C-alpha cells in the first residue's frame, strides 16, 4: 500500500498524462464512430430486445473471440484485437460510468471521456488475458433469457478433466443499440469487480479523478 501511494506521487509529477492523452487521440475516433449511431437514437426507446438478437450479438463476438484467441498471435496483439471487439460490441461508456459510481456525476466532460478511454483499455487488458484461455471450440452458447430490461446469454466451456465453465453475457439495447454490458465468468461479474476496484482506487486517491486516470493509464 505504501508503495502504491509513493508510486502515484511520482506519477503525478511525471509527464504521464501524455499516456492518457495519446490514448485519447488514438481511441477517440473509434469510440465516436461506434457511438455516433447510438446518439441519434433516443435512449428512452421501449425495451424491444429479443433473446435471439442478443444471442446473435454474442455469437458474433464469440466467433471473433475464438478466431483471434486461437491464432498464434501474442497476448499483446490479442488484447488489442479484444479491445477493438469490445469497442464494437460492448457499451464501454455505461460500464465505465457504473464503475466510477457516484463521482461520475461531478466529473467534467473531459474527465468522463478520458476515464472511459483508459477504462476501456484497462478492461481489455485485464479480461482479455483472463478470458483468452476459454477461446476454444468447446465454448458454445446454450440459452438466453430476459432479465429485467436486458437479456442474459449463457455459454459454457466444456472440457475433459474438469467441471464445465459457465460464462454469461449481459446484453441491453437501452443505449439505442444492442450492446454487451457485462461478462459474468463463473458468477464473477466484470462490472461488479470493476466497481469495487475503481472505487477503491478512487478512495485511495482521495477522490482525485485525474490521478485515477493517470494511474489507470500507467497500468495499461
Amino acid at each position, binding site marked *: 500500500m505504501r508503495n502504491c501511494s509513493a508510486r502515484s506521487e511520482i506519477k503525478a509529477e511525471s509527464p504521464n498524462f501524455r499516456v492518457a492523452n495519446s490514448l485519447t487521440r488514438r481511441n477517440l475516433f473509434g469510440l465516436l464512430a461506434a457511438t455516433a449511431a447510438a446518439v441519434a437514437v433516443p*435512449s428512452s426507446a421501449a425495451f424491444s430486445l429479443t433473446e435471439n438478437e442478443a444471442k446473435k450479438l454474442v455469437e458474433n463476438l464469440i466467433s471473433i473471440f475464438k478466431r483471434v484467441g486461437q491464432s498464434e498471435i501474442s497476448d499483446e496483439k490479442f488484447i488489442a484485437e479484444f479491445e477493438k471487439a469490445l469497442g464494437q460490441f460492448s457499451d464501454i461508456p*455505461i460500464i465505465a460510468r457504473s464503475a466510477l459510481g457516484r463521482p461520475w456525476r461531478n466529473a467534467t466532460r473531459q474527465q468522463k471521456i478520458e476515464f472511459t478511454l483508459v477504462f476501456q483499455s484497462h478492461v481489455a487488458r485485464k479480461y482479455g488475458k483472463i478470458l483468452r484461455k476459454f477461446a476454444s471450440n468447446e465454448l458454445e452458447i446454450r440459452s438466453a433469457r430476459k432479465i429485467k430490461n436486458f437479456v442474459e446469454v449463457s455459454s459454457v466451456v466444456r*472440457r475433459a*478433466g474438469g467441471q464445465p465453465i459457465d460464462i454469461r453475457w449481459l446484453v441491453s439495447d437501452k443505449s439505442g443499440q444492442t450492446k454487451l454490458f457485462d461478462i459474468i465468468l463463473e458468477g464473477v461479474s466484470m462490472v461488479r469487480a470493476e466497481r469495487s476496484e475503481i472505487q477503491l482506487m478512487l478512495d485511495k486517491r482521495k477522490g482525485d479523478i485525474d490521478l485515477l486516470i493517470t494511474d489507470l493509464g500507467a497500468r495499461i
Partner: protein
Amino acid sequence: MVSSILIFARQVQTSFAALAMVILICAGQPALARMNDPFESFNRMSHTGNLLLDRYIAKPASEFYGKAVPSEVASLIQRMSSNLSLPRAAMNQFLQFQFERGVHNSLRFFVNSTVGLAGAFDVAAYVGFYEYRTDFGATLYNSFGLGSGPYIELPAFGPSNLRDGIGLAVDMVFNPLYWVVPSLDVAGVISFNAIAAVGKRHANATIVDTLFYESEDSYAQTKLYYTQNREFELLGGFPEEDYMDPYIGTGDIYEELFGPFGN
C-alpha cells in the same frame, strides 16, 4: 473414572456449544453471502501471509512446474487429482439428496479409475459425463440451510467463510476415497494433490496473478471473486433481483460524453 467421564461430558458439552454457536452465527446470515467482514483485521493478516506464501513458494514452484512438466503430463496429473475428489463429491451429493448427480459422479469415478487408468484419461467426459463439483460446505447449505457466516481467509487454504471452512475440515477428515479404495495411502494422496495444486496454480496463472499482484487491493478483489463465485456455485446462478442494471438511474450517457446530438 468418574472424573474422566465428567471431563469427557464437559468436552462434549463445549463442542456442542461451539457447534450451536456456529449454527447461530451462520443462521443469522442471509442464504446469500453478502458479506460483512467482522474478522477483517485477522483476514488481512492471513491474506498478507498467503501472498508471501504465493510469492515465495507457490508462484515460483508453479513456474518451474510449467517449464519442467509438459502440458500433456500436467493435464494428466490434473485429471488424476480431480478423479480422486469424486467419491467425496458423490458422498456430499447423496447427503444433499441429489441422487442423480451422486450416481453420476460415482459412475465417473468407477469408469475413469478403471478404463481411464486411475483417472489419467477422462473417458466419462467423452460420453457426456462431465464433473459436478460439490463439498461439505454446500451440504451444510443445501441440506441444513446454513448461511455462510462471516468471511474468513484461511491461512494457506485461502478465501472461505465460517460454514465453508468447517466444510473443508469435514471433507478432509471424512474422505470416502479411503473407504472406497483402502489401498490408497493418505500421505501419498496428499502429496499428489499438492503437486496437482502447483499445476493448478500454473494453469490459472493469469487470473491468480491479476488478482494478487495487479489489483488495487488484492484482499478486497479476492474476497469479491470468492464470494460471488461461491454464491453462484451454491445457487447454480443468481436470482433476478441480484442483477444490476447499469442503465437505470442517470441521464443519457452519450449526451454526457459528446454533448447533445447535433452539436
